[in-house]
């Protein structure tokens, strides 16, 4: 037990940034020796997700997969992290704390690119992770910060997906591709934000369970609405998009969403939104314009869901109304509650965990939809606010707030 403690304190003495960079270095090494090492260990292919999928195909590969993870990831990451520690510590001291987030973002981007940028399947996972993060944090604004229970997030995603796709396929010239992609996404987001009013306006009068039913209805209105518009393919779906979504774009939009929503929830307006969650009548009595804040929260939330939808459409290159049903909305909810309520860090953790979990359990097919809810159930019983509920990683909090609060917020 004492040795375990020692190991833990030894490992936690290394800064997170060093681990991150260490993992990047390990990924870079993998690019060169991944295949030879895999075949040397008797693995049929290079493990794409740390060998977990391979092991599910044949349990006999377990020792080799573990050996691969140790050799390629764990050992190099640890060594690199230890070697980098003095350097990283110096860097962290030098960088002014307002710029600290930028350092983390750059490091994360570099690592993501090194690990997944040269590998088609991993690129897909990274893109899905980013899209899921945007969905998760935007839903968290309504469900976590404002305390309303929206169960129709996928509807807004669908609006964004269709508007963005129609624009890139029919309106914008195809040769402009990436140049007009942001415009298409923004238009999709704007359309979704307008659809968000469908929920925002009833929310003036209706709260709680009843509002949840309205969000559910909105999801159905949007899905069935699209299904009945033959011009855009009806239930057959819509295709013909160019593959415009890639790791840099997804990363850009994820970071943008993160920064904007973080800034908002830490501002006086964001505190107004939190006040609505806590006690709407008291919020009004304390001068909070609750109607305005509800419109802003719902529209911001659906705006970013629309952006995520546009990215999603240009990643899979095919969308149909049944991509945006209640099941997709439920996925968003699972991410929010897994990661943690009213927490940006929670949205990061929730989206990443959920995306990887979904991929890891893919070979289980339908059974994964038994296992994942079961995992969620166990987790919520142990920690009902989610992994990071009402807490934040320190690097996400601006200096002025950190001075007021120390490491945790609200």
């Amino acid at each position, binding site marked *: 037990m004492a040795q375990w403690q020692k190991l833990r304190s030894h490992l936690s003495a290394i800064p997170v940034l060093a681990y991150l960079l260490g993992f990047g270095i390990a990924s870079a090494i993998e690019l060169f020796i991944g295949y030879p090492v895999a075949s040397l260990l008797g693995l049929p292919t290079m493990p794409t997700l740390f060998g977990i999928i391979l092991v599910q195909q044949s349990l006999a590969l377990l020792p080799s997969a573990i050996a691969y993870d140790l050799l390629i990831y764990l050992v190099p990451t640890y060594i690199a992290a230890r070697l980098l520690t003095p350097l990283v510590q110096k860097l962290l001291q030098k960088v002014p704390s307002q710029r600290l987030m930028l350092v983390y973002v750059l490091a994360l981007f570099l690592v993501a690119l090194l690990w997944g940028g040269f590998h088609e399947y991993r690129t897909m996972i990274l893109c899905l992770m980013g899209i899921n993060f945007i969905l998760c944090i935007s839903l968290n604004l309504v469900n976590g910060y404002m305390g309303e229970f929206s169960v129709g997030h996928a509807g807004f995603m669908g609006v964004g997906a269709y508007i963005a796709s129609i624009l890139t396929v029919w309106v914008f010239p195809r040769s402009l591709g990436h140049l007009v992609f942001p415009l298409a996404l923004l238009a999709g987001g704007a359309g979704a934000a307008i659809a968000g009013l469908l929920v925002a306006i009833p929310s003036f009068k209706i709260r709680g369970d009843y509002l949840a039913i309205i969000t559910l209805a909105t999801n159905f209105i949007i899905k069935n609405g699209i299904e009945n518009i033959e011009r855009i393919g009806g239930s057959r779906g819509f295709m013909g998009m160019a593959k415009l979504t890639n790791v840099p774009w997804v990363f850009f939009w994820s970071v943008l969403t993160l920064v904007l929503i973080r800034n908002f929830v830490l501002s006086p307006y964001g505190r107004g939104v939190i006040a609505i969650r806590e006690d709407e009548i008291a919020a009004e009595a*304390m001068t909070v*314009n609750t109607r305005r804040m509800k419109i802003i929260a719902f529209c911001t939330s659906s705006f970013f869901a629309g952006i995520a939808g546009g990215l999603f459409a240009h990643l899979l290159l095919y969308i149909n109304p049944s991509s945006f049903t209640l099941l997709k909305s439920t996925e968003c909810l699972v991410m929010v509650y897994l990661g943690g309520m009213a927490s940006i860090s929670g949205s990061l953790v929730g989206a990443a965990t959920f995306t990887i979990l979904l991929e890891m359990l893919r070979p289980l097919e339908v059974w994964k939809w038994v296992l994942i809810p079961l995992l969620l159930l166990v987790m919520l019983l142990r920690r009902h606010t989610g992994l990071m509920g009402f807490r934040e990683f320190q690097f996400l909090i601006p200096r002025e707030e950190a001075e007021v609060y120390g490491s945790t917020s*609200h």
Partner: protein
Amino acid sequence: MALLHINGLTHYFGGLRAVYDFNLALEEGELIGLIGPNGAGKTTVFNLITGIYRPTKGTIQFNGQNLVGLQPHQITAKGICRTFQTIRLFNNVSVLDNVRIAFYSQVRSNLLDAFFRTPHLVSEDKALTREAYRLLEIFNLERYAQELAMNLPYGEQKRVEIARALATKPRLLLLDEPAAGMNPGEIDRLMDLIQRIRQEFGLTIFLIEHQMRLVMRICRYIKVMDFGETIAEGTPEEIRTNPRVLQAYLGEEVE
């Protein structure tokens, strides 16, 4: 010109007459009390003034401006703030943020400033935080600033509620049973506090109270309600001996 001028205020809940023909002319700087048995309609009067309910009949004017039909947040921004009979703090939020939320209408930065966290917003927010701490210090609450409101003892929560109300910069403060659930020692301290903030912030105070000790000691003028009607008003001395008040509180005498 009275600061708060209420004329013929009447309110029905369905067929139930909650408040009937309530009149009040509250001068700047006054401290008056509203008493009456349970269910007399006292809190309804507060809810009508602060816009939670819209009156069936009657007018409410504050500083010469009509209040009927305004949203609660607009009324508070005009300078009328209240506390609640049962504490309504933002429970899962720090004490500091409870106070900072109440600065909402005073924020000059716009939404774009908020989304992009411009230097303007940051400096404004810093100033607001300093002001929130200053308020908490007046109430001796600064050591709880980072604590979640729900973790505070009852009496402290009551004081946070008053501090939070003062953050909206009111001219008129409505206190709904501030002493409810307090022991005599706490009530004495509360009376001192009310007197102190009244002078320090130049407040006009209108309070509902059950604790006669408190009302009789600090209010120079008292209104008594029963079944929605005003049955008596006057100085504490007059109220104490008024037969209708005694009847409402103690029941009718058997002849």
